[in-house]
C-alpha cells in the first residue's frame, strides 16, 4: 500500500517537472532555428528550419505535442548532434551510472569504515577527526579537489590517467573526487547511528551475556545502524548529481551530467529537456526505491 501511495504521489511531481522543464527551456534566450542554421544562412533557411522544428506554433500546442511525444518515449532530436535525444541520453547514462556506482562504493567503504571506528573510539582524537573530515568534505569545491588530484596523481606522480574513459584506472580519480564528499557525511551518520543503537536494550543484553564486542558489533549493531545510512544515500543524491556535473566536466568523463551544461551552452533545447527530464526521473525513482526499501526493511521505524 505504501508503495502504491508513493508511486501515485510521484506522478504529479513528474508532470510538474516536465512542465517546468518545457517552460524554462522555451524561456532560454536565443533562436534555436538560427543557431542550427548558422550565422551565414539566409532568413528563408532559418524560417524553414523553424517550421520544421514546429517552433512557429503556439506554445500550448507545442506543449501538448511535447507531452504526447514523451509518453511514447520520443524526446525529439538534438539540434547539435542531430540524433534522437533519448538515444544520446541512454548512450551516456551508463557512464554516469558506472561512475556513480564506483563513487557510492568508495563513499560507503570509507564512510562506514571511518564512522564505525570513530563510534567505537568515541571521544578520542579519531572521533573528532571524523567530524572534521565530514565537514571538510562538504565544504570543498569539487572542481578544486578534482584539479588537485589530477596535478598530484596524474601529472606529478604519473600513476593514473589525467582524464578520459576506458579502463578501470580512468575511473579512480573521478570516483574518488565524487565519493570523498559523501564519505564524510556517511561517516558521521554511521557514527551517530551506531552510538544510538549501542544504547539499545538488546545490545546491552547481548553484551551482558558475555559476547565479544566485535561479534555484537557485527551481528546486531551494524545491521540496524546501517538502515538510516541507506536513506542518507537517497538524500545525498541531489548533491551527488551536482558534483557529478563538475566532476565529469573536469575529467572529460562521457556521462550525462556533463551534457546538461554543454547542452545549455549550445542552446540545444531538446537535449536540455531530455537530459533534465531523465535525471529528474532517475532522481524521483531512486528516492522512491530508497523510501520503499526503508519501510520494507523496518516497518517499525517511524519518521521523526
Amino acid at each position, binding site marked *: 500500500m505504501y508503495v502504491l501511495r508513493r508511486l501515485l*504521489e510521484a506522478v*504529479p*511531481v513528474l508532470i*510538474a*517537472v516536465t512542465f*517546468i*522543464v518545457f517552460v*524554462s*527551456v522555451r*524561456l*532560454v*534566450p536565443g533562436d534555436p532555428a538560427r543557431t542550427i542554421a548558422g550565422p551565414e544562412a539566409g532568413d528563408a533557411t532559418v524560417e524553414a528550419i523553424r517550421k520544421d522544428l514546429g517552433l512557429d506554433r503556439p506554445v500550448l500546442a507545442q506543449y501538448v505535442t511535447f507531452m504526447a511525444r514523451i509518453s511514447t518515449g520520443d524526446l525529439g532530436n538534438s539540434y547539435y548532434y542531430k540524433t534522437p535525444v533519448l538515444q544520446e541520453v541512454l548512450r551516456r547514462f551508463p557512464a554516469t551510472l558506472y561512475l556513480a556506482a564506483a563513487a557510492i562504493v568508495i563513499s560507503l567503504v570509507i564512510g562506514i569504515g571511518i564512522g564505525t571506528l570513530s563510534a567505537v573510539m568515541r571521544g578520542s582524537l579519531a572521533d*573528532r577527526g571524523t*567530524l*572534521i573530515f565530514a*565537514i*571538510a568534505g*562538504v*565544504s*570543498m*569545491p*569539487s*572542481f*578544486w579537489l578534482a*584539479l*588537485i588530484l*589530477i*596535478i598530484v596523481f596524474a*601529472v606529478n606522480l604519473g600513476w593514473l590517467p589525467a582524464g578520459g574513459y576506458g579502463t578501470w584506472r580512468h575511473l579512480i580519480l573521478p570516483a574518488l573526487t565524487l565519493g570523498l564528499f559523501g564519505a564524510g557525511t556517511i561517516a558521521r*551518520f554511521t557514527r*551517530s*547511528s551506531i552510538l544510538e543503537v549501542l544504547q539499545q536494550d538488546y545490545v546491552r543484553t547481548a553484551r551482558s551475556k558475555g559476547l565479544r564486542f566485535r561479534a555484537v558489533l557485527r551481528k546486531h549493531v551494524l545491521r540496524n545502524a546501517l538502515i*538510516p545510512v541507506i*536513506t542518507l544515500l537517497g*538524500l545525498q*543524491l*541531489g*548533491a*551527488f*548529481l*551536482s558534483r557529478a*556535473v*563538475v566532476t565529469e*566536466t573536469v575529467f572529460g568523463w562521457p556521462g550525462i551530467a556533463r551534457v*546538461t*551544461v554543454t547542452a*545549455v*551552452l549550445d542552446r540545444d533545447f531538446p537535449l*536540455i529537456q531530455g537530459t*533534465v527530464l531523465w*535525471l*529528474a526521473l532517475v*532522481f*524521483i525513482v531512486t*528516492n522512491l526505491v530508497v*523510501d520503499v526499501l526503508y519501510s520494507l526493511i523496518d516497518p517499525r*521505524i517511524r*519518521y*521523526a
Partner: protein
Amino acid sequence: MHSPNEPAERLAAASTVATEPESSSGTRDKRPWYRQDSTVRTLLADPWTILGAVIVVGFIAIAILAPWLAPSDPTRGSVALRLKPPSTEYWFGTDGLGRDLLSRLLYGARLSALIGTLSVVVSGGIGIFLGAIAGYAGGWADTIVGRTVDTLLAFPGILLAILILAILGPGINSVILAVGIFGVPTYARVVRATVMSVKQLDFVEAAGALGARHGVILMRHVMRNSWAPIIVLTSLNFGTAVLTASALSFLGVGVQPPSPEWGAIIAEGRQYIRVAPHITTITGLFIFVTVLGFNLLGDGLRDALDPRTQSK
C-alpha cells in the same frame, strides 16, 4: 519526502530554547551571563565552532575592508608581469593578465559575501513564507506547497541553477536568484514543521479567539520557535551558496570573467593549471576555508541549540 533523523526537523520538533539554568541550591549564580547560558557554553567549549566563527568573521571583515586591504586594483594589471608565482611583491602571485591575485581574491570575497547574503535572503524569504503558509493552512495549501517543495527537490540543485541561468543569462543577479531558489526547500520544511507543531498549542487558539490577526500570531510564534534552526540553516546555506556560485562560474554559466568572483578566477586559471597552479590552488583554498567556516559555525550552532545533541 520523509527524512528520518533530519537534524533540522528534530530541532524544530524540540523547539525549546535553552534558558537560564535554575540554581538548585537557591544561591545566585555569580558567573557572567555567557558562562551561565548553556547554549553559549556549548558553543564556546568547542574549538572547531570557534574556528568557524573566526573564519566567518574574518571573511566578513575582508569583504567589507577589501578596498582598503587590497594592494592593487583588481581589474588592472600589466601583461608583462603575468603568471608570476607568489613573491614578496605579489603575495599570491599574478594571474594570466598580470593582475595581483591577492587583490582579486579580496574583492572576490565581497562578491561572494554579496551572493551569499542575497541568496540566503531569497531562500529564507520565499522558504519561510511558503513553509508558514503550508504549516498553518494545512489541507490543500499544505499539499500544494508540499508538492512544490518536492518538485524543487526533484531537481538536483545544480541542474535547476543551470536552467535558471540559461534563461536569465549569466551574471551575478542570475546567480543570486538561481542559488537562492534552490535553498528554498530547506527553509520551507523547517518552518512548516514548526508551524504545525505550534498551531496546536492553546495560546495560539486563545489568541485567535481574542481576535488577534492570524498572520501576526503566526509570524511571531514561528519566529520565536524556529529562529534556532533558521539561524543554523542560514549559516549552512551561506556556505552552500558560495560553493554553488563558484561552481557555476567555473562551469562558465555563472559570473563571467573578468569579474573577480572566486569561481570565475578558477575558471580563468584553469588553463594555466600546469604553468601557474598557484591561481587555482590558492583561490580554491579560499573557497574551501570560507565554506568550511560557515559549515563549522552552522554545525556548532546546531549542536549548541539542540539540547538533545549536546555532548555530555
